[in-house]
């Protein structure tokens, strides 16, 4: 039995895909009598099956060496495209997170979307989404990963555009797709080039190719930069970061997946590509620079947001920025740890935010307050999720940072400063949110706010437990989250002695600032002009969208107008002119001919 399950591990993504296909009669409206609920139950069942299957394998895998399942997809001429899947602690650890969180989210969605008329369509999309994510966790081939990333782009588009009748949703879905597509196309350029230069597109082949091959530095730099473009789009890094924030118009359960797992999926591919992207120092520095800019910029943006989901989604970009830096420094294990701790805590925060939104019918934090006593489970979840992110409490992120600066890794003071910066602002942001949402006196919209139904509270509380427990996961399963280096402490330098205390101090500082700063309704838009300038600057995301409008969008739309004008009046005009001229010449010559004839 176990051998059978191990041998057919490739089937795990198929489960949820089947679930998605089975829901079609409901989502197309062929079956109406039962209502959309059966579709949801089927999908949840399939996810449970997938979760159990992957859990069994996850338990068996420790005694076995990693193995690959190679599938020859296409052989044409001299090209052999293989897709391969990997059976290893890393891939199945990822799979556990994907199926586990997806299961919780789907149960949560039953409550959140209870009154929605197209619940079946939502579950069909979720099934597709989960299948792509699960495949991505197991994929060991760049080509397969690219295909699945594109499938994610499509399903993100459809999930963000779920309520497609609303104007903001329409633009959000469009921007999410196109922004990611920019990154993906550049990534595809890299893949085409890599496939032309290299031996094959499997990650292991790429690694050996990198070690043996000497590319020209400029080519290696371009290649590396093109490969990081895809993850930049997926992980919402500067300058492709705005889609994540806009995508918050979509339904919240999908938002949970997006902010915890989907961004991680992009980073996961980046980690797998690490040997190639750090081949050239240019692209390695590129990763670090992009990560740093994003971490600083989005940390600042987050504290000025009044939309609860947007405030959290900007912080997602900031943590992904740290992951980028870790990959740029070739510290892959830390990147894994960051991803894992962030994914769990952020999923919990988003579940809590979703509960608040559902009960208050509102996303604006300035209109909330005093929910603490009314929604205890939600409040506690928010607290635990925040604790998981801020390096003050001894939960996931604290231990991750601790390990980063423990001396096993080559770290520098600027990095410590940056991590402290992110930590301070993350703490300010989360304490600020906690205060305005849960503490204080209730406002109009938060006065009658019952706790959410069990479909939402059960997954939320379960995830809360998971967040508390998984702080110890890296110690339990070192091969999963630290596949390369054992967790031993090495030399103790000055930086390692001071790092942990400094981080704790930064977390405390953030919490203190966040909880002492005056919260008044008037502050939502200050009358002090200088303050308001900075507030607007941050709240409108440094006007990056205006920058897009003035540069890329303006360029493309003007070019389109220009070419279609050229097409109509110059290219086609020339043709019409020739035909007109021909007709005129014929008419003139015939009249002259006739005149001459009449004279004679």
């Amino acid at each position, binding site marked *: 039995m176990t051998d059978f399950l191990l041998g057919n591990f490739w089937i795990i993504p198929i489960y949820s895909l089947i679930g998605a296909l089975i829901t079609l009669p409901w989502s197309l409206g062929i079956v109406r009598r039962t209502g959309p609920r059966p579709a949801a139950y089927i999908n949840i069942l399939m996810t449970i099956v997938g979760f159990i299957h992957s859990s069994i394998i996850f338990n068996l895998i420790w005694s076995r060496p990693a193995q690959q399942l190679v599938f020859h997809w296409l052989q044409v001429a001299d090209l052999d495209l293989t897709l391969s899947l990997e059976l290893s602690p890393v891939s199945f650890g990822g799979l556990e997170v994907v199926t586990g969180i997806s299961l919780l989210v789907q149960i949560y969605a039953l409550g959140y979307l209870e009154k929605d008329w197209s619940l079946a369509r939502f579950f069909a999309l979720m099934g597709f989404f989960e299948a792509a994510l699960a495949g991505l966790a197991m994929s060991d081939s760049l080509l397969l990963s*690219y295909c699945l990333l594109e*499938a994610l782009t499509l399903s993100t588009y459809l999930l963000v555009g779920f309520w497609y009748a609303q104007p903001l949703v329409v633009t959000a879905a*469009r921007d999410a797709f196109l922004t990611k597509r920019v990154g993906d196309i550049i990534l595809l350029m890299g893949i*085409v080039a890599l496939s032309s230069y290299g031996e094959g597109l499997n990650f292991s082949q790429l690694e050996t190719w990198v070690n043996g091959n000497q590319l020209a530095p400029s080519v290696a730099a371009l290649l590396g930069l093109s490969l990081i473009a895809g993850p930049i789009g997926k992980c919402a890094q500067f300058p492709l970061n705005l889609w994540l924030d806009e995508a918050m118009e979509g339904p919240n359960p999908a938002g949970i997946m997006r902010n915890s797992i989907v961004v991680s999926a992009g980073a996961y591919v980046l980690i797998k590509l690490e040997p190639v992207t750090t081949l050239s120092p240019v692209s390695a520095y590129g990763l670090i620079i992009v990560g740093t800019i994003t971490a600083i910029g989005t940390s600042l943006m987050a504290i000025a947001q009044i939309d609860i989901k947007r405030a959290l989604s900007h912080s997602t970009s900031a943590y992904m920025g740290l992951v980028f830096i870790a990959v740029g420094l070739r510290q892959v294990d830390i990147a894994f740890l960051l991803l894992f701790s962030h994914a769990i805590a952020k999923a919990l925060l988003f579940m809590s935010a979703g509960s608040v939104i559902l009960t208050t019918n509102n996303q604006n934090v300035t209109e909330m307050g005093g929910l603490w006593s009314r929604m205890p489970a939600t409040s506690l979840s928010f607290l635990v999720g925040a604790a998981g992110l801020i390096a003050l409490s001894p939960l996931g992120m604290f231990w991750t940072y601790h390990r980063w600066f423990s001396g096993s890794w080559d770290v520098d003071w600027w990095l410590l400063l940056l991590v402290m910066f992110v930590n301070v602002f993350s703490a300010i942001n989360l304490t600020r949110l906690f205060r305005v949402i849960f503490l204080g006196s209730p406002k109009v919209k938060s006065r009658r706010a019952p706790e959410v139904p069990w479909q939402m509270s059960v997954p939320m509380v379960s995830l809360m437990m998971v967040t508390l427990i998984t702080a110890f996961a890296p110690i339990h399963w070192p091969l999963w989250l630290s596949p390369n280096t054992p967790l031993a402490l090495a030399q103790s330098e000055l930086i390692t002695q001071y790092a942990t205390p400094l981080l704790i101090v930064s977390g405390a500082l953030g919490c203190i600032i966040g909880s002492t700063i005056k919260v008044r309704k008037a502050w939502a838009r200050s009358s002090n002009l200088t303050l308001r300038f900075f507030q607007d600057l941050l709240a409108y995301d440094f006007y990056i969208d205006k920058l897009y409008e003035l540069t890329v969008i303006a360029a493309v739309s003007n070019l389109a107008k220009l070419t279609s004008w050229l097409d109509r009046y110059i290219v086609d005009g020339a043709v019409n002119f020739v035909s007109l001229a021909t007709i005129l010449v014929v008419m003139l010559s015939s009249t002259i001919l006739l005149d001459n004839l009449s004279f004679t």
Partner: protein
Amino acid sequence: MLSALILIPCLSAAVIGLLPAKGNSPRNLAIATALSVLAVNLILAFQFDFQQNGFQFVEDIAWIEWIGLNYHLGIDGLSFPLVLLNSFLTLIAIFSTNPQIQRPKLYYAMLLLLSGGAAGAFLAQDLLLFFLFYELEIVPLYFLIAIWGGPKRGYAAMKFLLYTALSGILVLASFLGLVWVTEANNFDYLFLRSHHLPLATQLLLLAPLLVGIFIKIPIFPFHTWLPDAHVQASTPISVLLAGVLLKLGTYALLRFAVGLFFDGWLYLAPWLAILAAISALYGASCAIAQKDMKKVVAYSSVSHMAYILLAASATTRLSMSAAIFQMVSHGLISAFLFLLVGMVYKKTGSRDVDFLRGLLNPEKGLPVTGGMMILGVMASSGLPGMVGFISEFLVFRGSFPIFPLPTLLCLVATGLTAVYFLLVINKVFFGRLTEGLAQIPPVKWQEHAPAFVLLLLIIAFGLKPDWVTHWSEVQAIALLPGS
């Protein structure tokens, strides 16, 4: 065997045209004809040896000896997918025709004649015979646009006729020149191919041929007949025009331009690759600014057909197979998109992206059409899992080692595909339903059947691309001399 592919539709066209038929019988007869042609094609597929080089099922009969015209047919890995695509899309086109169409006898006769002419052109292995079929197919298409077209059909049909007639003349000039230079006494393809001409002569003969072909494909700046023809043609005709007739151009490109004038082709290839990139970007850029859904799809055709020129100019083993694959893939996807746009037009009476809104509305809109349109758009913009991705990937992968920069520019055009199509989807299908459109007649399942079949094929070939590539792999490489 091969003659059947040409004769069945032509004879049936005559029968439909001449017999006094009432009611649905012309349509039924046309469907029966298309089905039997498809059946012959499938039988052919089972007997065809994909591993063998050269032409199979050859039929060679002397026709008009004093000009050297032979009725010489043959099929190889380049012709086979296109012939199959032709017979399949003909069936789709007939099915998607409105059963209450005016003058059904003439319409179906013309449609079958068109299909037979195209099949003949794909099968002809005699240059003059190819030319005859190439011209033969223009006439029915002219009538199909000029009689059953939109409001400006006269202009569009005349423009199409003049352009393609010019294209035919240029192709003929090149063929005649070739025969004159080689002092051959016939137009046999293989015979002429075995001649080796000096580079200057090749270039001189290649130039008119290329211009003629570029009009047909169409490649910038010879493309302006296409958007007009598409917009004015009815849906089934657009399906055939995009799916089959444009492929005549790329077929001629591979068969004659590469096959007969290889040295000249290699000499021009770097410029052709740049032209392909320009055409791809230009088509995409024009598509962004269009307000008519059909024009968007038409310009996307200009953009996507240019990839075939790119792949052909790279002349690697891979890129030649990829070029053929891209023809099939573009045939299926553009036919699919035209069907869906046609469905929107049929139900709402408009294709204006500024007027239509919110058609995904599940109660009053066109949700299934909208859902399929999203998939079609994704297929066209190269989403993995559908045939557009792998065919374009092979084109790019095959061309990149030879022409890196044009390939990257074509990749940018692929990115723009998502832009123009997504703008259409967002405007037409998302948002609130247009006020004046409260009464959209519901779409019956059988109306969607042709589109469903195409979608299935698009996905199936996307997941198992070797089903297409193995048809042509061995023989596509044989187009290149020395391999």
